[in-house]
């Protein structure tokens, strides 16, 4: 049985029927395919056995930035991770599908109660196409709300990966700058990036997976993780004795959040397992409205996300949800 039965977001403490159903399910810690209820859209989740690893990069790693150090030893629990980045096929169900209006007196379903993106002002796919292309250009708030919607739909507690979980999965047990090796020679086999992507994202899962069966962690779209960005984060962690499931929970500011993995638009160095990138107001530079959208960036066509589901949700993350609203300040 799955320990730490997911608490559907938005209803802390409550135990709606979905949670009970998930708890009752037989619990092999194995790969599974989820079908989004009421649709034919599926996605695959692969198990990642937790453990300890060195997070960050050594001072002599080529292309390294200051915020990747000092290296810290962290431990993460068991979790499932999306085998691929979330696609438009999946994301559109949340962002664009019409919702049934509840009849008078009827409460909206938990999924319908999750807030939904306002309409974008242009082509949200930026000419890259939809379907199996990775969903992109959404804000951290939108990615985060998607996971809440999906959780309510499926009764399983999906969320963004913590920065530690993401790096642990990207390294897949290795210590080299990329999971594919110490030089960028083999990178093109596993990643779409500036050298081979021709300036566009590609359908998910079309390169080789890493040792744990996960595709596109390096490249294609860069990926939102759950943490707020802090350049001195590792320095503040390095004094601590044991780091179990570290995470820096974001507050109500729109920026900065952490993005990992580099994108089709980046050079190899930005794809390294340790490389961190911070979101910033320039990512909505061309949004002419005020307040700017909390759902869509106009100048971050390189960012998407993938799902994680903890086998046993750390206490700090139970019921976590984005605090961002239209009133939120930039920083």
């Amino acid at each position, binding site marked *: 049985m799955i320990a730490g039965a997911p608490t559907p977001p938005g209803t802390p403490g409550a135990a709606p029927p979905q949670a009970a159903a998930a708890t009752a399910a037989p619990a092999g810690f194995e790969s599974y395919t989820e079908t989004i209820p009421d649709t034919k859209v599926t996605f695959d989740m692969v198990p990642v056995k937790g453990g300890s690893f060195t997070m960050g990069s050594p001072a002599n790693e080529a292309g390294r930035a200051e915020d990747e150090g000092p290296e810290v030893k962290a431990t993460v629990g068991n979790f499932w991770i999306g085998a691929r980045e979330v696609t438009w096929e999946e994301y*559109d169900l949340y962002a*664009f599908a*019409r919702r049934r209006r509840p009849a008078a007196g009827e409460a909206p379903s938990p999924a319908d109660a999750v807030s939904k993106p*306002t*309409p*974008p*002002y*242009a*082509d*949200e*796919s930026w*000419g890259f196409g*939809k379907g199996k292309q990775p969903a992109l250009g959404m804000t951290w708030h939108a990615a985060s709300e998607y996971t809440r919607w999906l959780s309510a739909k499926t009764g399983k507690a999906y969320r963004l990966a913590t920065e530690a979980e993401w790096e642990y999965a990207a390294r897949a047990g290795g210590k080299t700058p990329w999971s594919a090796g110490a030089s960028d020679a083999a990178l093109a086999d596993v990643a779409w990036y500036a050298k081979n992507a021709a300036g566009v994202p590609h359908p998910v899962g079309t390169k080789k997976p890493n040792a744990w069966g996960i595709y596109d962690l390096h490249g294609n779209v860069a990926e939102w993780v759950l943490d707020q960005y802090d350049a001195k984060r590792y320095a503040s962690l390095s004094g601590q004795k044991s780091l179990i499931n570290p995470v820096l929970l974001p507050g109500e500011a729109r920026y900065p959040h952490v993005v990992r993995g580099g994108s089709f*638009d980046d050079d190899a160095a930005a794809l390294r397992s340790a490389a961190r990138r911070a979101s910033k107001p320039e990512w909505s*530079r*061309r*949004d*002419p*409205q*005020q*307040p*700017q959208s909390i759902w869509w960036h106009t100048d971050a066509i390189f960012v998407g996300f993938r799902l994680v589901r903890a086998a046993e949700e750390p206490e700090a993350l139970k019921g976590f949800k984005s605090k961002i609203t239209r009133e939120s*300040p930039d920083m």
Partner: protein
Amino acid sequence: MSLDDQKDQQDQGFSRRNFIKTATAAAVGTTVATHFSLPGAYAAGSDEIRVGVIGCGGRGTGAIRNVLESSKGVKIVAMGDAFKDRIEESRTRAKQKFADAVAVTDDKMFVGLDAYKQVIAVPEVNYIILATPPGFRPLHLKAAIEAGKHVFTEKPIAVDPAGVREVLALVETAKAKKLNIGTGTQRHHQAGYIETIKRIQDGAIGDIVASRCYWNQGALWNRERKQEWSDLEYQMRNWLYYTWLSGDHIVEQHIHNIDVINWVTGSHPVKATGMGGRQVRTGAEFGHIFDHFAIDFEYESGMHLMSMCRQIDGCANSVSEAVVGTKGSAQLDKYTIAGASAWARAKNDKDVDPYVQEHTDLIASIRKGEPFNELKATAESTLTAIMGRTSAYTGKAVTWDELLNSTEPTIVPADLKWGPMPTPPVAMPGQQTSL
């Protein structure tokens, strides 16, 4: 306005400027402006820009941020909107970010359908931002220019031929009064577009023989009606969905792409044959506009432009412009050229927000005392889009000349009052005779 009136106003303007010069020096002291020679002068100097904003919704509030980020020595001094809640929200938001530069006191906050007159009448205002729904644009432009103010107006500049004619007549008035006008066609201030179009105009793809432009996207926002709203208020708060207010989405939104083709060819189409309809967005809450258009525009050179726009969820999307030449082709929105002179613009992290740059350019021209007037080009792009809409609404081929010279009155109701206002019928191609 008679010549005498104009002269009168210029004289008033002159004395007003002198008055403000004194008043400013006394009252403001520490700000950049120590003299005041802005409106109608084309005179150089480091003069303070004092902005009056008309239309304080999401775009107007965004424009406040843009103008304040664009240049030093800019202050917001007056605001007007049809609705009290909108203007107050706008000031609050703007002040959060620019506490000092948003110096709008309560007595310079104007609410109602005539708020534009009051904003324009504020003597120290020398730079007007027009960001109301486009139906009001000709009226507001005329008032601002006649009062001797520099103007930044959002696109489109009208919703019908009568409005375009009115605005075209203002082009020379503004020049004569040495007033500078920017028009919210921000691609003209976007480095990538500027570079790409310059290459094409310098011959990178030879002569342009075909073109296409699209704004195909999903549906836009819609506000639920509140019981206390009159018909007019409901329409204005949902202005996208009424042709008299927005011009329909081909005019309100797709104008950006059409304008790029007019820009790169240095011309405008002479004829449009189009179609469109209202297939998915059929509810009463969506007024009476169409949800898709497809137009074949023909230019004098014989070149055709395939134009499409759609606001329907779950369909193939594209917001883009492309031209095909005798020696190559160009994807303008991607800043790429293929063919003999193949080229792709390198990524440039220094690119500035074009919505800021358009104010930077306008204000710099005002301060340098150089002429700057985008009104004619944007009026032509507006009329181009109106020509496409008219063809789709009527089902007929429509020419530039018949639109420009039509004598039909404006579709914008005169003497608006809060109260009942029926939704116009949905246009039925083949059955409609008027433009």
